[in-house]
């Protein structure tokens, strides 16, 4: 995208019908470090790359527990991500208080999307510069959603956001049909494989990534370093082979889209809000 006269504020349309400030916000998501999510019928796994600025500092926190049944992984302006996570936690706990039951994931993401939309239609605000992968469980099953700075949201079987996420998406595009019936262990391994793709040859260790799981009978929690490293060792020892596919590919979910909806760096003509 080139600098032009229609991109100064979010309340100015371009002649081609685009809001450049919103598109620039989505650009910020692409610059953040990678985050991926995948789901089966019973579990959702979120994983992210956490690189520290220097050896002396700690890693950025990019995965947040929102409630026992929902977690979120972010990419982009992590400060914006923290604020939105706080909002999500607040909504979940208020719902629990009034209704003594868990907020359905689908309702939370709509509230989140509506909150993001407000910032695309006020002259004194700016869009949130963070993409959120919301993974959670409710009565209707396991869900994975992606929330955009534009105020759009989509449900996915598997998705990746942030820098070099296309590599992860390519891997997941090959394997996503096995995810629905995958076991918890294989789902986590697939997540780690996908994450490794975004590292472009750099060695995957538990110190540069974070993995979190939520499932039926399993509250959302971040896996500890030892567990993650053990899983990494397990498949690195086995060589380049991806984990065994247990069942024949089954296509069930009419709603879920394959992880191909993002755009490559060369896409300048297509308005990203058509995603």
């Amino acid at each position: 995208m080139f600098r032009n006269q229609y991109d100064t504020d979010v309340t100015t349309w371009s002649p081609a019908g685009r809001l450049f400030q919103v598109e620039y916000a989505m650009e910020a998501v692409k610059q953040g470090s990678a985050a991926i999510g995948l789901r089966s019928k019973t579990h959702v796994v979120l994983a992210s790359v956490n690189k520290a600025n220097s050896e002396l500092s700690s890693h950025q926190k990019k995965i947040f527990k929102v409630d026992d049944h929902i977690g979120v992984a972010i990419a982009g302006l992590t400060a914006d991500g923290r604020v939105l996570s706080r909002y999500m936690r607040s909504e979940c706990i208020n719902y629990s208080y009034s209704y003594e039951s868990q907020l359905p994931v689908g309702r939370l993401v709509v509230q989140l999307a509506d909150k993001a939309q407000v910032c695309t239609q006020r002259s004194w605000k700016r869009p949130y510069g963070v993409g959120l992968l919301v993974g959670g469980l409710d009565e209707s099953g396991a869900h994975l959603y992606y929330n955009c700075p534009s105020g759009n949201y989509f449900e996915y079987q598997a998705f990746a956001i942030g820098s070099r996420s296309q590599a992860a998406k390519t891997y997941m595009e090959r394997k996503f049909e096995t995810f629905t019936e995958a076991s918890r262990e294989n789902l986590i391994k697939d997540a780690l494989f996908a994450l490794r793709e975004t590292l472009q040859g750099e060695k995957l260790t538990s110190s540069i990534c974070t993995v979190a799981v939520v499932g039926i009978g399993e509250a959302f929690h971040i896996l500890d370093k030892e567990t993650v490293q053990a899983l990494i060792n397990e498949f690195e020892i086995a060589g380049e082979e991806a984990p065994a596919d247990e069942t024949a590919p089954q296509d069930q979910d009419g709603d879920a889209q394959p992880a191909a909806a993002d755009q490559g760096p060369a896409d300048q003509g297509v308005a990203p809000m058509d995603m």
Partner: protein
Amino acid sequence: MENSSYSLLSSEADSQRTLYPYVTGTSVIGIKYKDGILMVADMGGSYGSTLRYKSVERMKPVGKHSLIGASGEISDFQEILRYLDELTLNDSMWDDGNSLGPKEVHNYLTRVMYNRRNKFNPLWNSLVLGGVKNGQKYLGTVNMIGVHYEDNHVATGFGNHLARPILRDEWHENLSFEDGVKLLEKCMRVLLYRDRSAVNKLQIAKITDEGVTISQPYSLKTFWNFSAFQNPTVGAEGSW
């Protein structure tokens, strides 16, 4: 709105809050049975000691999965129905396949009742909330001070004193519909004999996974042919 309530106990503020009920309904009883919940209430609305209104529907369906029964101030019950209407409307406007079950409605009502109690302006009711969602049966109660609990059988008002002892003895898991109705009618008959505000015109409601049915009003047969009632003045001839 409440500028004049510098003290909640001053007489000016009194015109802003509920002090006593006017038109009241008496007991509601609810039980779990094999397929769901059975609830019964009579159709009386008393104005103090006068049995003034005799066609008051004190049980209403809520959303797809619940049934509410109320005793106490009828106008407050009507207000609660408006709250629930708004709640279920907003719930269905999400249009996302999720819906509020009886547990959620019960907890929402508990919050409403307790909050009003804290403001010294209660909704003068005792409510029974029952329902079935995804095969799971739920039966709970909440009253004007916010006390709430769930159980296999619940009742309000006099029902607590007269019906629940019968239910503690005779209720069991997986009652058939016929047995459930017989049990509730037995309780209502006792209440009819012993509760001054009971009227002999009642409705029974059932809620199952398929939905809500509220019966047409009907009356119970009563038995007055006790020997003590024949020649009642036999021991007191000549007296008042």
